[in-house]
Structures are given as structure tokens and as C-alpha cells.
């Protein structure tokens, strides 16, 4: 049977990006469903950035339009949270929060729905 996932997974279950980069280096950014239209469906981006603000600028450079969804006047929008590993950056150094190889950033917008 054809395995439609073959292209993006390898035995052992490590996720690799479409370019074949391993996911355990650099900084991974998890993109929520709501923003996938800006990343061509890519759920996991990888960047090398010194801090959150620089990383968001890099994402906006590569995926124009996503920045407007996340930021307003240089500040994170108040219905969007960014978690570094499992901590909310609002309670850390916000946009200046430092990043290191292996960190995982998750972008979490508020969801309205009980639908």
C-alpha cells in the first residue's frame, strides 16, 4: 500500500522538514492551523535567531503577511501568545526573550470556537 507520509517521515518517527533538515537543530517554530495559509501549509519552521523579535522578523520576511497577524505596532497582539518551550514569553523578556539551539516556539492564537 502506498504510504502518503513516506516523504515527510523516516523510520523511527523523527520528523524532518521537506528539505530534509533534521528537526533537532536550530529553533523550531510551531505554526497554528490558523496561520498555515501564510506558510504554504508548513507546520514546523526552523530558524536561527538570537531572540523572539528577530525570529518573527525572519518569519515575516519569508512569509509575508504573517507578521500582521501576530504583531501590532511592534508588540505581540493581545490575542496571540508565544510559548518558548512551555513558558509564555510575556512573562519572560517578551520580544527580547533569548533563543538557543533546540528551543521550540509555539504560536498560539485564541480560538473562539466551541462550535
Amino acid at each position, binding site marked *: 500500500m502506498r504510504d502518503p507520509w513516506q516523504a515527510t517521515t523516516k523510520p523511527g518517527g523523527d520528523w524532518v522538514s521537506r528539505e530534509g533538515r533534521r528537526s533537532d537543530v536550530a529553533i523550531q517554530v510551531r505554526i497554528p492551523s490558523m496561520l498555515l495559509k501564510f506558510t504554504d501549509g508548513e507546520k514546523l519552521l526552523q530558524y536561527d535567531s538570537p531572540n523572539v523579535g528577530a525570529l518573527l522578523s525572519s518569519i515575516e520576511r519569508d512569509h509575508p503577511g504573517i507578521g500582521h497577524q501576530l504583531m501590532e505596532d511592534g508588540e505581540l497582539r493581545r490575542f496571540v501568545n508565544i510559548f518558548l518551550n*512551555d*513558558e*509564555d514569553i510575556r512573562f519572560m523578556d517578551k520580544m527580547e526573550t533569548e533563543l538557543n539551539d533546540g528551543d521550540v516556539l509555539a504560536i498560539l492564537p*485564541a*480560538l*473562539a*470556537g*466551541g*462550535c
Partner: protein
Amino acid sequence: MSVKVYIPTPFRRLTGNRTFVDADGSDVVGVLTDLEQRFPGFGEMVFTEDRQILDHVNVYVNNHEIRSLEGAETTVSDGDEVSVIPAIAGGEALAPEEVERYSRHIIMDQVGPMGQRKIKSGKVLVVGAGGLGSPVLVYLAAAGVGTLGIVDFDVVDASNLQRQIIHGTSDIGRPKVDSAADRIADINPNVNVVKHNEPLTSENAMEVMGQYDVIVNGADNFATRYLVNDASYLLDKHLVDGSIFLFEGQVTTFFPGEGCYRCLYPSPPPPGMVPSCAEAGVLGVLPGTVGAIQATEVIKLLLELGEPLKNRLLLYDALAMEFRTVKIQRDTACPLCGEAPTVTELIDYEEFCGSPFHEGPLASDN
């Protein structure tokens, strides 16, 4: 004859904290007399001065209440299980039908008859009888929550049935509270259902929500989500919050004073920026998973058992089939629960959110 006797929590100090003890006797009174002789103090907990079983103590043999059998003279055989269940304040005794219905709960040490009575004493309000509300109501009804309030003013629409499992095809066009109440009555006629067939507003929220112990948020719009959050905090109620979108869900349990939805998301998105399920879609099973987690949280709260999702936000990604939790915390600058609150009563949430209490043009997608 040797039987196993279930010892309820208030009597366990007499039995060395053992939940089950073996006892000998040919009938119930014999078994209780054996325990009386072995565990000082036990006798006066179950017998009157003239050796009758106290009125507020129910005894069950293999989950049948002895008054429906031969009373204190009910015979017991090897391997039978006898349960001694005293009435406790705030908890109604379980009827024999309930003992049988909830037997898979009652046999668990962590629940037991006392826990089941706590569930029965529970009053839970579910906001929205939609995607999340459906599984929450079904599971809480099945679990025996004594009072279930349902807030919804929609009618069942064909497009709801892909995920709103409390409603059926024959319910299309009926008010959701009626459809849900009928389904609950069939699942468990012991549940008292309170129908609130009206929108929750700043005018009625305190009165409606004030009647309950635990609030479950399954609202489909930001205005209601913030209203429910604020009213829960002002009323000092636990709030089990869940939200879903496409293939993703978020769940957390707010304890009053230890962080709230505003601490997590200080303001709603501008109208139109975040699409609703009606606009973007939602995987039909997704609210089942998220709602079942919310129902689990409610039962744990009622039982005062385990670790609630307090100060943790559980993230579920159905496509990756991955659960993760992130830490959330009270924001000391929160306008509601922070150190200098500016929201001290309910506000105009439609204005705050720039959107109505109802999502979009599809009046039935709650």
C-alpha cells in the same frame, strides 16, 4: 461464610484505613456483628441501641440494597460483597438502581459510593450545547452529575450533526436545549436538567451561573467566552475552558484567583481576524476529544481527585496526534483578577469584542 466488606471513608479510621475487609457471618447482621467485635467503635456507627441497623446507614449485598432483599437477615455466601454506606451531609444516598448503574465507578477506590454521591451532588453549567457541549453533557449525564444546566438558544441544524452528538437527525429544527434534555433523560433519568433557552448576557449571567458549582465553557464566540470568564471569577466558580479550530484544541481549568482567560488572552482578536468554525470548518471528532477532556476535568473537580489542568494549557493537535501542555499563570496586571482590577462587574462584551454574542450569519452553528 467469608465475605468482602466495603468500608466507607468515614469508617476507615476504625479499620486501619482499609477500604475492604473480610468478615464472617451467615447473614448481614452476623457480618456486621463480626466487624463490631473486631473493630471497636464500628458497632455504634451501624447499630441502634436495640441492635437495629441505623436509618441513615444503607447496606448493600452485591450492589442490592438489603431493604429490597431480606433486610438485616439477608443471607450472604462465600465471595459476596457487602457495602456499608452511611448518608453524609450534602450527599443524597444512592438508590439501588444507581448503585448498579454506577458500579464501575463505585468499585474504584478513588471514587467509591462517597465519590459517586459527590458527583450526584454536583451542579454543572454547560455553556453551549454544540460541538463541545455535546460530549460534555453526554459524559456528565452518564457519570451521574445530579444537576446539569444547559445554556443555548439555538435550534438544531443539519450542519450540526457532523459533530454535535447529543442531537439527532429527528431533532433538526428543535431547540437545542430540548433536544439535549431528551437525550440526557434517555441516558440517565436521574439527572435534573435545567434548560436556559436564552443567550447568556451581562444581565442574566450572574443569576444563571450563580446556581452552579462548576462552569464548562463551550461557547462559540469571543463575547460569550469573556463573559463566562468574568462571571466565573466574580462568582468564585471553577471554569473548565475549551476551544477548538480546524484540527486543534485548547483546554484548561481556571481556579478563581489563580489566573483566568484574560490572563491568557488579554483581548479578543479584532472582528474578522480569527475565523469561526462556521467560516473555516472543524473536524467533527475534534470536539469529542476536547469535550471528553473537559468532562474529565469536571468529574475530577467534583471528586476533588487528581491534578486539575490548573495553570496548564493543554494543546491537542489531531493531525500530528500530539498533546502538549504549556504553563500559564495569573497576570498581576490582569484587569479582572490582577492586583488593581478595573473590571469589577460584568461589562458590555459585544462592545469589548466588537462582535455579537452570536457567531456569524449561521444562527445554528453554536
